């Protein structure tokens, strides 16, 4: 049964976002009339190249970077792989990486594989987090060694929205002469970022998390950072990333970054207020519910709430009946038999980890939608708890 987009209450913006109408408008000419290759010598192609450069400036503007530091890629994952693999290749004598236990699979699995598939040539320190999802800076300092090639720490956690002090961590790494990469896929567009004020060497972002289309990302590479490309090929992106440019999506991403800069204040006021209303409302209305993650040190749009003694997939499917879209850290939603590695790293008890729901809002959400969710969810939880053999014992 198909569901029309207009019927949907979409609160899963950390998974992906709708393309902003302005973004689509900016893209359309490059999907239709202006199909030239930006590398071509004639004006018909060259004008496309100019559009890419404008997009580069718009992305740089949102990040507080120079346009020359922006490399367009196909996605956040490619950016992550490019940064980390470049760092270990430019530091062939070093064999150690520092990351956290709560990274996105794009970084987590790359690090795991680097250990396994190189016959343990590389070893990885995975920093633990506290029960509120925050990092211990002293522990980070202690983890750095002369062998450390790169630190890769996410700016904002995709599941809980918890922010890590990456600016301070990058400074600490710089003092030790260690490269610093941050997966900022969830942070870009939601919180102010000014890279020229930081010591961050690499930053990854993904277009579809900020109302641009899927299939385009960016790797920020600080000027002067040693760099070896991941995709080798033509001279595109100044030889830093081969492959003909995904022109329309790059133009869309540029427009999306300009829009995000305009909407940054709204994201941090109106969206934050909606998130807080949703979170407070749910925690108040539903007994045995709890927030996962630090209350203030997190993104303005994310609420991760556990409903004890019920299971997340069952909650989501009931929400789906009401056309509410969100996601869960439960085992059953992923096909694994274990709940989210993020919640487990935080020590969230099993009673709560299996019943966690992540709501992630955007500027397109309304107060009416929040009210609808607040009116709907208590009934769903109550219905499932009536089925639960553990609930009656409470």
């Amino acid at each position, binding site marked *: 049964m198909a569901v029309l987009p207009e019927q949907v209450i979409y609160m899963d913006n950390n998974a992906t976002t709708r393309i902003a109408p302005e973004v689509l408008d900016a893209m359309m000419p490059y999907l239709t009339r202006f199909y030239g290759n930006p590398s071509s010598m004639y004006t018909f192609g060259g004008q496309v190249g100019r559009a890419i450069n404008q997009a580069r400036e718009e992305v740089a503007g949102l990040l507080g970077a120079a346009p020359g530091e922006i490399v367009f890629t196909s996605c956040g994952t490619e950016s992550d792989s490019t940064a980390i693999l470049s760092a270990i290749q430019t530091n062939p004598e070093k064999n150690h990486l520092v990351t956290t236990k709560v990274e996105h699979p794009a970084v987590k699995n790359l690090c795991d594989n680097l250990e396994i598939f190189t016959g343990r040539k590389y070893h990885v320190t995975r920093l633990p987090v506290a029960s509120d999802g925050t990092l211990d800076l002293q522990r980070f300092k202690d983890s750095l060694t002369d062998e450390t090639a790169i630190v890769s720490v996410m700016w904002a956690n995709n599941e809980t929205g918890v922010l890590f002090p990456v600016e301070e961590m990058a400074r600490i790494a710089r003092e030790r002469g260690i490269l610093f990469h941050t997966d900022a896929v969830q942070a870009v567009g939601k919180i102010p970022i000014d890279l020229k004020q930081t010591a961050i060497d690499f930053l990854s972002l993904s277009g579809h998390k900020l109302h641009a289309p899927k299939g385009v990302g960016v790797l920020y590479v600080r000027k002067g950072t040693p760099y070896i490309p991941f995709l080798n090929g033509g001279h595109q992106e100044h030889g830093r990333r081969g492959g003909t440019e995904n022109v329309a999506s790059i133009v869309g991403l540029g427009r999306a970054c300009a829009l995000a800069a305009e909407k940054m204040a709204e994201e941090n006021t109106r969206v934050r207020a909606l998130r807080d209303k949703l979170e407070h409302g749910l925690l108040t209305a539903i007994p045995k519910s709890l927030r996962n993650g630090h209350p203030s040190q997190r993104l303005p749009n994310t609420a991760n709430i556990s409903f004890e*003694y*019920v*299971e*997340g*997939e*069952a909650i989501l*499917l*009931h929400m789906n*009946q009401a056309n509410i879209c969100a996601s869960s850290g*439960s*085992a*059953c*939603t992923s*096909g694994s*038999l*274990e*709940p989210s590695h993020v*919640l*487990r*790293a*935080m*020590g*969230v*008890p*099993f*009673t709560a*980890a*299996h019943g966690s729901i992540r709501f992630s809002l955007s500027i397109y959400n309304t107060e009416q939608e929040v009210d609808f969710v607040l009116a709907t969810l208590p009934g769903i939880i109550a219905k499932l708890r*009536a*089925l*639960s*053999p*553990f*609930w*009656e014992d409470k």
Partner: protein
Amino acid sequence: MWEYTDTVQDHFINPRNVGEIERADGVGNVGSLACGDALRLTIKVDANQVITDAKFKTFGCASAIASSSVLTEMIKGMKLEEAKKLTNDDIAKALGGLPKEKMHCSVMGREALEAAIANYTGAILPMAQGEVVCECFGVTDLEIIRAIRENSLTSVEDITNFTKAGGGCGKCEGKLRALLAETAAGAAGHTPSAPKKKRMTTLEKIKKIEEVIEREIKPNLKKDGGDIQLIDVDGDFVTVSLRGACANCSSARTTLKEYVEKKLREQVLETLIVEEDK
């Protein structure tokens, strides 16, 4: 998103036979919160050995709920002998199939049915822990020892009241007495007395630690799908390895310190420090 059949979705949205039968003839409890799904099945059986009613309570995902719901429909009106032959595949088929990652939900349904039937007939489930002492009610030595400890039981009559053991043919009365005496002796042994602690030899200490792990700690962890093994004892440092569900459990450290260490300190030596073998 999982591809659930219409039947699965129907049973999930409109589950049948939810609840618990009062004074059920058979109760089957399987799974645990840690595993992410658990099912309590209650059945009513008449004089002709036919299941006349079945109800369930399930913590779990859509397919766990649907498997439980369809199971209750399937077994209602079924002869016990037929119900015993029911497989998890039968449950999955009744739902029009399950995603293969979700087949364990149908297995859980079958196990709950087995447990409920076993509970009714008094048969012993192979997964039951420990050595059965009371054959009439299928009560193991582990269950009895725990009941004695936790409730400070002092007589065979107490044990029967708490565990049903000894309440049938009464053949096991001698064994129950022996368990009472052993447990009481163990309890006396852990009454704090400084001179005794000092005199304990390393060998005695290891033996005692081993005993407590085997008798009390391991069975309790196994209930949640976990396991534990003693690796080494070096002075006051006890190294153990957590296995099964415990190995990847986020609360493993809490389990180690709050439960394992506490138990060993109570029953062996107050100065013990338990660490995990990594």
